[in-house]
């Protein structure tokens, strides 16, 4: 029937009137429609990107590792959740960077908007300010607290979170150190601004990290089959942490 065979030029106008949830339905209708929507840089995705993402996010190099409009939109849908973070943290207007206010004696974190239960996922995290004494990067279920008193490895501090402290290179889970990571002598210290890639494999139940495109090894095994969220926790006043969701990890 005519609808299935509409030329792409027409699909571009038609789909420009639909929201993202309807676009998802359309991509499942037939292969012609799917092929059009699979062009992640087409004008339909570009317009949604422009409407939803802050101009500053699109103009800066924040999203330099998510090249297409659709991927940038997806990254925004996975970004820090302004409704699921410590009260001492706010998400900046760029939508991707959290800012920890200079409140004394408190550890503050945030979770991403979307958690994962299946598939393989990769996201970048980097500090844009000092780490302080405890800078945790890892995963939390919805049940872990995003704030606590004192300076504490919050991500990793209970049975529902797993974290890597970038300050002393310790892995923490259930409040206990699980050893050094990466397991090398004289592993280099984290430099502010370096982007760390977090790799979650829900099929293998593992969490691993990569730095400077170098795979550092599996950090945690035996993760539960429950919704797991990207998370960080910070203690330094006015420090900032960015997170950008990349999609499934590229194999190789």
């Amino acid at each position, binding site marked *: *029937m*005519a*609808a*299935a065979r*509409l*030329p792409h*030029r*027409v699909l571009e*106008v*038609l789909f*420009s*009137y*639909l*929201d*993202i*949830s*309807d*676009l*998802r*339905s*359309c*991509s*499942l*209708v*037939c*292969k012609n429609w*799917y092929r059009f929507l699979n062009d992640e840089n087409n004008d339909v995705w570009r*317009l949604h990107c*422009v*409407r939803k993402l802050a101009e500053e996010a699109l103009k800066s190099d924040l999203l330099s590792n998510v090249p297409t409009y659709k991927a940038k939109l*997806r990254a925004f*849908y*996975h970004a820090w959740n302004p409704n699921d973070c410590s009260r001492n943290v706010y998400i900046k207007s760029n939508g991707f960077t959290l800012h920890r206010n200079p409140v004394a004696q408190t550890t503050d974190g945030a979770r991403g*908007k*979307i958690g994962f239960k*299946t*598939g393989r996922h990769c996201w970048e995290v980097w500090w844009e300010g000092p780490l302080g004494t405890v800078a945790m990067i890892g995963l939390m279920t919805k049940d872990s607290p995003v704030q606590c008193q004192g300076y504490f490895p919050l991500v990793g501090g209970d049975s529902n979170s797993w974290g890597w402290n970038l300050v002393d290179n310790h892995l923490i889970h259930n409040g206990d150190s699980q050893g050094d990571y990466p397991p090398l002598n004289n592993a280099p210290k984290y430099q502010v601004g370096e982007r760390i890639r977090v790799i979650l494999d829900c099929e293998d139940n593992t969490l691993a990290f990569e730095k400077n495109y170098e795979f550092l090894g599996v950090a945690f095994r035996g993760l539960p089959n429950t919704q797991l969220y990207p998370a960080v926790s910070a203690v330094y006043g006015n420090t900032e942490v960015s997170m950008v969701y990349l999609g499934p990890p590229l194999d190789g």
Partner: protein
Amino acid sequence: MPNIKLHSSDGEIFVVDVEIVKQSVTIRTMLEDLGMDEDEDEPVPLSNVNSAILKKVIQWCTFHKDDPPPPEDDENKEKRTDDISSWDAEFLKVDQGTLFELILAANYLDIKGLLDVTCKTVANMIKGKSPEEIRKTFNIKNDFTPAEEEQVRKENEWCEEK
């Protein structure tokens, strides 16, 4: 006012006021390229539009001939579909086959206003529906294998989040 002759794909000739058909960028360009004088007797061939559809297109263009040029789209605003005029809504109360032929004609003739209103109408028929409901509405065959469908569904799961 000068007239021009349009020749439909099935051989009918329509005599129309040239100001009305200038809403079609395609026809406007053809006139310029063919160096046609507005009084020219030679009909403009429209091999992709049959007479039934051409008649409707001319009807739409005649009603809209004095429309002001549409404002530049504000890219930051969501595009609306609830602002179809009652005349256009009535004009588009046609069977689906005709609706899609009008879309293809508006695309071929490059008449922005008509393409926009016909696409808005179809968009309203899509909104809120599941893929299967959309297929039923437009009689589209599902040409995905179950595995392919599952993969696309998973890839785009995030689109359901608010």
